[in-house]
């Protein structure tokens, strides 16, 4: 591919959605260190607010986190709550999350409340998240919340969220289990029951969050062929990991996951937001692929914030 000059790139970028097909050439071999308003913004589908229970995180303050995300051209962040991991009063968790998003990031922070299937009357929390707090989706944290995806209520949750048009984010991990605080013992999340629940529910909108794809290849293939589920990139590892996943690296096996099924997720503030953006830069991705991962696929899932 022949590099184009910067002015041409910006002109193309400013064409908005059309730029995806037009700007199919690289920015340049040595891009200057100045910002441009035409570069696509990023929808971050995986951030959490408030305190991580086991460490004071650098960007635990919501105002500071919002500023940090915006500095890196995040235009919208889907926010869960660290409080949902261990607390029993889920209504309190969700109410505080909604208020925090309104106060510090209206139109930017999109609250994703949580329900805990192990607690009684979780269905009421679904209703309140949707009807009272007007949340567009829910995020569950199996393992930290004391249930696995084979919980008898899992299928009901998938159906209930689908009927309400809610996105269901299923978190597959929060940190490397080798460095867990000794007081907790969170096992791996079982994937197969989720696949069954999603396959049997029409119109389910499911995102696998912080998903390391340790599952059998055929399970992942079924997830891709039989459902519309998407994955975030926060847990993708290895040089060129995204490229390997979508099959954009010459000489390596073809796609395991189509690019339209991948969304951006940083796992901030636990992970540095820089890491996820650098994954986009490290992998050989063209303009169309980048746009899809940075915002297009997430916007398709949630048309408006």
């Amino acid at each position, binding site marked *: 591919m022949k590099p184009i000059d910067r002015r041409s790139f910006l002109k193309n970028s400013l064409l908005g959605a059309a730029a995806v097909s037009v700007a199919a050439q690289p920015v340049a071999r040595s891009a200057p260190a100045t910002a441009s308003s035409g570069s696509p913004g990023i929808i971050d589908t995986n951030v959490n607010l408030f305190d991580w229970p086991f460490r004071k995180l650098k960007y635990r303050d919501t105002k500071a986190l919002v500023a940090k995300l915006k500095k890196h051209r995040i235009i919208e962040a889907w926010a869960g709550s660290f409080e949902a991991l261990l607390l029993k009063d889920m209504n309190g968790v969700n109410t505080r999350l909604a208020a925090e998003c309104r106060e510090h990031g209206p139109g930017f922070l999109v609250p994703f409340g949580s329900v805990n299937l192990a607690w009684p009357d979780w269905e009421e929390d679904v209703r309140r998240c949707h009807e009272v707090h007007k949340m567009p989706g829910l995020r569950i944290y199996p393992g930290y919340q004391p249930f696995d995806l084979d919980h008898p209520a899992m299928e009901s949750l998938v159906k209930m969220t689908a009927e309400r048009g809610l996105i269901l984010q299923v978190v597959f991990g929060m940190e490397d289990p080798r460095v867990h605080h*000794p007081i907790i013992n969170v096992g791996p999340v079982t994937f197969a029951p989720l696949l069954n629940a999603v396959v049997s529910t029409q119109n389910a909108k499911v995102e696998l969050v912080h998903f390391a794809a340790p599952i059998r290849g055929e399970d992942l293939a079924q997830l891709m062929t039989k459902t519309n589920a998407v994955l975030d990139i926060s847990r993708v590892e290895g040089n*060129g990991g995204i490229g390997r996943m979508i099959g954009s690296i010459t000489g390596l096996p073809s796609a395991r996951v189509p690019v339209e099924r991948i969304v951006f997720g940083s796992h901030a503030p636990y992970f540095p937001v820089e890491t996820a953006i650098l994954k986009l*830069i490290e992998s050989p991705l063209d303009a169309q692929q980048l746009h899809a991962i940075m915002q297009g696929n997430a916007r398709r899932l949630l048309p408006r914030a």
Partner: protein
Amino acid sequence: MSPREFFINPADYGLPTRDELVGYRIWDNHFHGFASTNPIEQYERNNFFVERMGIERSIAQEVGGTLEKPLAPYAFDAEILKILERDKDRLSGRTPIDPAYPEESCAKIEKWIRDGPCIGIKYWLSTEKGITCSHPNNDPIMRLAAELQVHVYVHTWLKVGGTPRLPGGDNGESESTPMDLAKLAQRFPQVSLICGHSGGDWELGVRAIRPHKNVLLEFSGSDPHSGMVEYAIRELGVDRLVWGGHGPSRSYATELGKVLDADISKSDRMKIFGGNLRRICAPIFRKKGLKIEL
């Protein structure tokens, strides 16, 4: 796509451009390019990412044997040696040893470092139960390292588990903890040691090595945690941190993000990205007549 083609400008996302990454003079202290059943193909393929992310030099962790069988001849040794010579401007190597066999390990150091191309020693696990880096078996190896003025990289971890459940309780039978490394450092303060993987659990690893000024900390091969680099600088000082990429199994993106997350000066970033490693590599580079600009 060529390694230098980008469809977004990193600067627009608050990140260094490739030119700026090159300007940091990044030395990858932890490179697993040859750790594969097909090491040559993997190495050549990974060069795309080395070039793309502006890495100046990679230090391969397994030159001469493998981590699993460090003292046995390896079918790819000759080809790897040719690559080391071909790519000497951007590639160096450490040779792995096994403290269960100190005499054989010293003989290997003589062959691959004194008389060969390697510039450091790599400890992974031992083949014998209980022979961690703090075991007395290590002493002749350390004396030889001191004589040759080479640094020693030690894989360390603190995997939570066991009964009672504690950090390190799930370590392998010969897997060193950062506390093991601290014991070794106390016996050999004249040898530069690198605490690999930040001890596995960086909040505890940093504490373990804190008193021993000859121990540097390397973060690679663990998840990126926001704030970890600033914590290490506060406790150890910026001169004791080195950067590792741990590719290709980990991504340069993961490892670069750890340092770019830190609100530190450019000069401090340069120390972590390569300056500190060059400082401890300089004596052996000069002995071998290799060019090194600090």
